[in-house]
């Protein structure tokens, strides 16, 4: 038993070390409290709506959100737009449809069932417009980066002058938190860039937090259901385990031996 405990501790420490070291280079990310973290985490609806606004006004000109549909904006566990608000948002975009009776493609206002319109027709067009770098699709970006929300939140605020002696090529910028420190996206956020419809002051930190919260939702739209179901599942399993434990004791009491 003692050896087992030793091995278990060794395993846990090794796992801990590897998780910690594989997370990212030794940079400490900026910390903030995320309302969705932890087993009882939930999304801040107002933050999600503000984050959508930042995405739409700042990011969507280069970054697609191709796995999201407009109807998702009105669904449970999301930003909490009403169906008519989501419909209006969809209708404000032009969507390619067709072919029509003449065999041609045409554009029409978006519907709830449409996916988010992409800023570029394809990856090559996106690269060509951005100095050869492809602005990644953002739907699951938060899960596609080892540092997760802390990394995205920090990166948006991490632009600074390069250290002495480092020269950067044209179109390359220095970012404290970017893996490798060189990034082809220039600093996008500045204080007051967006006028929040709910009146919140739009500092760079506020916008970073809101858009990152929004991105957590786009990556994990069912996060709240998952947490709620998890709570019920674990409570249920504990109850059943206790019942089965006592049943087991009762059954084994017939045999003259320890279990």
């Amino acid at each position: 038993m003692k050896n087992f405990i030793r091995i278990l501790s060794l395993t846990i420490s090794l796992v801990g070390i590897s998780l910690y070291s594989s997370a990212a280079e030794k940079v400490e990310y900026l910390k903030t409290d995320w309302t969705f973290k932890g087993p009882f985490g939930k999304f801040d609806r107002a933050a999600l709506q503000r984050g959508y606004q930042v995405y739409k006004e700042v990011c969507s000109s280069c970054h697609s959100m191709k796995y999201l549909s407009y109807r998702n904006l009105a669904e449970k566990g999301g930003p909490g737009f009403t169906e008519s608000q989501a419909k209006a948002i969809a209708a404000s975009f032009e969507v390619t449809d067709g072919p029509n009776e003449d065999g041609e493609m045409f554009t029409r206002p978006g519907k709830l069932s449409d996916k988010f319109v992409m800023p570029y027709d394809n990856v090559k067009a996106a690269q060509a417009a951005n100095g050869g770098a492809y602005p990644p699709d953002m739907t699951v970006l938060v899960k596609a980066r080892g540092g997760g929300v802390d990394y995205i939140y920090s990166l948006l605020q991490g632009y600074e002058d390069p250290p002495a002696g480092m020269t950067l090529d044209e179109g390359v910028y220095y970012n404290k938190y970017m893996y490798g420190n060189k990034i082809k996206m220039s600093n996008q956020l500045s204080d007051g860039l967006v006028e929040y419809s709910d009146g919140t002051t739009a500092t760079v930190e506020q916008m970073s937090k809101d858009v990152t919260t929004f991105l957590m939702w786009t990556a994990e739209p069912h996060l709240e259901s998952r947490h709620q179901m998890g709570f019920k599942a674990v409570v249920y399993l504990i109850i059943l385990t206790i019942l089965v434990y006592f049943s087991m004791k009762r059954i084994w009491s017939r045999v003259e031996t320890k279990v």
Partner: protein
Amino acid sequence: MSEKKTKRRDFLFTATYAVGAVGVGATIWPMIDQMNPDASVKALASTEVDVSTLNPGKTITVLWRGKPVFIRRRTQEEIEEARSVKLEDLKDPQKDEDRAKNPEWLVMLGVCTHLGCVPLDQKGDYNGWFCPCHGSHYDISGRIRKGPAPTNMEIPKYQFVDSNTIKIG
């Protein structure tokens, strides 16, 4: 074993089985429900059709939930013809008024109620539709008049959201 002990044992085992059964059910349900229409399919459950360019005496066919829907803008003669049919003559008696609330517009599923083929427009002996698969004839209200089909072509749920647009489903 004393009766009290038996009762307690039975209660424990019964409770365990009952709680276990709840868990089994709760686990099986998602496996079954995943086959139900998903959110992206449900989002396409209704279709809006622009009928502003449809003239009287013309039929268009649109796709709704994967099936054809005939939308015909009927002429005055066609409406009168549809209304004047005697109910005793119909295999599936139904008044035209109940099929086309706005008499000028006939909106129905273009699926033959026999075995599911798509009937042809402006064919057949009743100035309506004719199904070439097994010879069912439908009149200008989409009701079965001759042939093996048992019932009239189905009228889906629809409404005019404005004077130019019909929302089906």
